[in-house]
């Protein structure tokens, strides 16, 4: 071989294929970029900005205009009143001015010194306004008949307002206070601990319970399909429906679970399952296990059914007992899917929000990182802090994902 080196570049067929591929992917890439990548970038941006929910609305000059004095006949005196304020309590507005047209038939008697009247055009300039600044302007006017005839009122002519203000979202003020705030004190570590507890035990529990269910259903019998469907119910039903069902079932006053436990003599006093530390955390974890064991069950079952039955027949011939078969054959065979499932579920449980939010709202020691995002951003209206928590979550996920990708490239399937 004279030239045993691969040719460089791509051939015409490959080029055509690549062009088509990018064409097909373009809409998806755009959509994903718009709704995933962009928001992720935004999160990072916001996390270093001092943004409160209300800051999403840029400060503006609010102007109200009315005619006071209730003139009834020509020649009555009245006043036109302009009330203006800076809508923001913490942002100034620079170079405020407005202009308006005075209706026909109102003769302005005197003009504030900051204003000029040119014919019927009124222009006022105020300079810079402090946050929360208010201003009331009154102009005495003399009413003429033409005004009364026209049926116009001063508010009918829309005043045009000018003023510069900066939007926290886009200006150049940055702060690390959001992070300082969330990392502050034991609270953060409690949240982290709760998250880890919930994630680790929720994941492992769901895997084990799922494994048990899969073992149970890994034989064909009549009604197997129905049972399988039934066992998937917890996952398929809307989370809000099952979460409320659990709340009602475990209600300390009128919940059947407590009634049952009391009746059976397990406990004397009703137990507040979702309200007491640390029981609430255990309960939300149990809920997680309950709701997601179907998934592990489904995956493990699928894997089990793809295991060559020949292998078990060979083991039968080799004289292995059922437990030996389970321990020496099934478990090692399932190890792959179990670890993939563990990692994936770990990440998903880590990401879980709805369940805890609906069950306890993050109270009674169940506040996880995701609930904390909501808590900070919406309950406390501190969007910046919420974003900071989100950044922390994202950081954790990045670590998990790297780990996961490294791992998954070794495991086949999935």
């Amino acid at each position: 071989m004279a030239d045993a080196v691969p040719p460089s570049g791509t051939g015409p067929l490959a080029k055509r294929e690549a062009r088509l591929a990018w064409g097909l992917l373009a809409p998806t890439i755009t959509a994903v970029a718009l709704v995933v990548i962009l928001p992720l970038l935004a999160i990072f941006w916001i996390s270093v900005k001092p943004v409160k929910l209300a800051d999403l609305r840029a400060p503006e000059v609010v102007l109200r205009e009315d005619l006071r004095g209730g003139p009834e006949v020509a020649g009555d005196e009245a006043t036109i009143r302009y009330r203006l304020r800076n809508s923001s309590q913490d942002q100034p507005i620079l170079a405020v001015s407005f202009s308006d047209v005075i209706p026909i038939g109102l003769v302005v008697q005197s003009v504030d010194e900051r204003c000029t009247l040119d014919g019927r055009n009124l222009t006022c300039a105020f300079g810079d306004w402090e946050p929360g600044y208010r201003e009331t302007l009154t102009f005495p006017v003399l009413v003429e008949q033409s005004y009364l005839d026209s049926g116009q009122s001063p508010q009918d002519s829309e005043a045009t307002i000018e003023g510069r203000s900066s939007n926290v979202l886009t200006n150049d003020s940055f702060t690390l206070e959001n992070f300082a705030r969330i990392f502050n004190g034991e609270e953060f570590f409690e949240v982290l601990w709760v998250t880890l507890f919930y994630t680790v035990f929720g994941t492992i529990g769901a895997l084990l319970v799922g494994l048990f269910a899969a073992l149970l259903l890994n034989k064909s019998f009549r009604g197997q399909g129905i049972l399988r469907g039934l066992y998937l119910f917890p996952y398929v039903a809307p989370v809000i429906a099952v979460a409320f069902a659990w709340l009602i079932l475990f209600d300390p006053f009128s919940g059947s679970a407590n009634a049952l436990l009391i009746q059976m003599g397990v406990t004397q006093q009703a137990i507040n399952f979702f309200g007491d530390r640390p029981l609430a955390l255990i309960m939300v974890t149990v809920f997680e296990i309950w709701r997601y064991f179907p998934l592990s069950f489904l995956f493990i079952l699928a894997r089990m059914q793809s295991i060559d039955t020949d292998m078990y027949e060979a083991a039968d011939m080799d004289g292995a007992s059922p437990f030996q078969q389970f321990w020496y054959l099934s478990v090692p065979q399932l190890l792959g899917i179990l670890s993939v499932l563990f990692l994936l579920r770990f990440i998903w449980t880590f990401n879980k929000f709805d369940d805890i939010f609906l069950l306890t709202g993050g109270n009674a020691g169940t506040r996880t990182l995701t609930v904390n995002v909501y808590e900070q951003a919406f309950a406390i209206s501190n969007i910046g802090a919420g974003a900071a928590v989100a950044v922390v979550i994202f950081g954790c996920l990045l670590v998990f994902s790297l780990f996961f990708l490294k791992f998954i490239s070794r495991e086949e399937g999935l």
Partner: protein
Amino acid sequence: MIRRGNVTGPVLGALWMIVLSVTVAVAMSFATGQAFRPSIALSIVWGAIAGGALVTVGRGRSVRLGILAALVIGGALGFGPVLVGPETSLASRLFGSAMLAVSFASSLPSILEEVKPGILNRHEFEGAVIRFLTGFGYIFFTAIVMIPFYVMVMTSLKNQSELIQNPLDFSIDLSKGAELFRSYDELFTQFNFGTYLFNSFFISVLTVFITLAFAIPGAYAVARLRFTGRAAFSRSILLIYMVPMIVLALPIYIAFSMTGLRNSFWGIVMIYPVTTIPVALYMLQGYFRGLPSEVEEAGLMDGLSRLAVIWKITLPLSLPALASVSLYVFMIAWNEFLLAFMLLDDPSKFTLTRGIASLNSSEIPRQHLMAGSVVATVPIMALFLGLEKFMTKGLTAGSVKG
């Protein structure tokens, strides 16, 4: 030691009796609201005796009938494994002990099938243990899956005061007739659930179509076409699939607030598919990869362009997968709660899940809340049971996500 028939038998008998007596007690309590209570000590005694008898005397008909009769009589006289309260009616007392007796006497002999008095070999012993665990497993799973749904449905049919008086009493007073469904009636007449149902349905279906429109070409490209960056792309699908919704929800909320898309139908319809496209991409590309490429190559040889091959060959062949994906996406959209909760304020635009959330927060009786939950659950369940095969496939294909 444990692997001796005369030990294994009583031990398994006792354990099985505990399982059954708890089951019967719970079932009877839930069905009648009367006091039933399993006695662990009595269960052990009864179970051990029965297990011992089955192993030593044999599994003949007479032994089974003996156990059955003893259990019924013992239960009726009040020293059976399930104890009853003083006000428990005779009928339910008899029914309970008969239920326990029949289930126990018919199942224990088969659990102990291979157990004989002497030393057991591994196979016989493990066989018995496995049969015991299997029985326990079926009861356990059926119970944990059914009870919340049972409570949901029954609560929706009973009013507040009935429930507070006896939270265990789920018996239904059929004489109330249509009045039983009062909460459903009110949901639809006073709480707008008709609109919510329609909104949810409409949004979910639209989401399915939009998702497919984006995911099919994308998934095909990733699965079949060779281009640089393909591997990276197919990995990033998985990565994107792992970004938590709450993290995205925050900027989306901000952006929607500032653009006026919040609290609008179209905002929701825009955002839902994006949450489902990665899932759909992931599932579809897996399926496309599994399709025999030769069929497509045959199409190419027969003179079709790539796009024509996708349209005329790949898609018709993928119908089952498309059905699975659609169902799965439908389910996600139907069950979606977080975005609906954050983005929708206006009751006329609520989806079902949002509607249920609004039932929670007021002085609205909980039977309405549960009725709402039932309304949201039933369609997805019906769809699920009807199309179980597709659903299961869809779930297995892509739903590590939860």
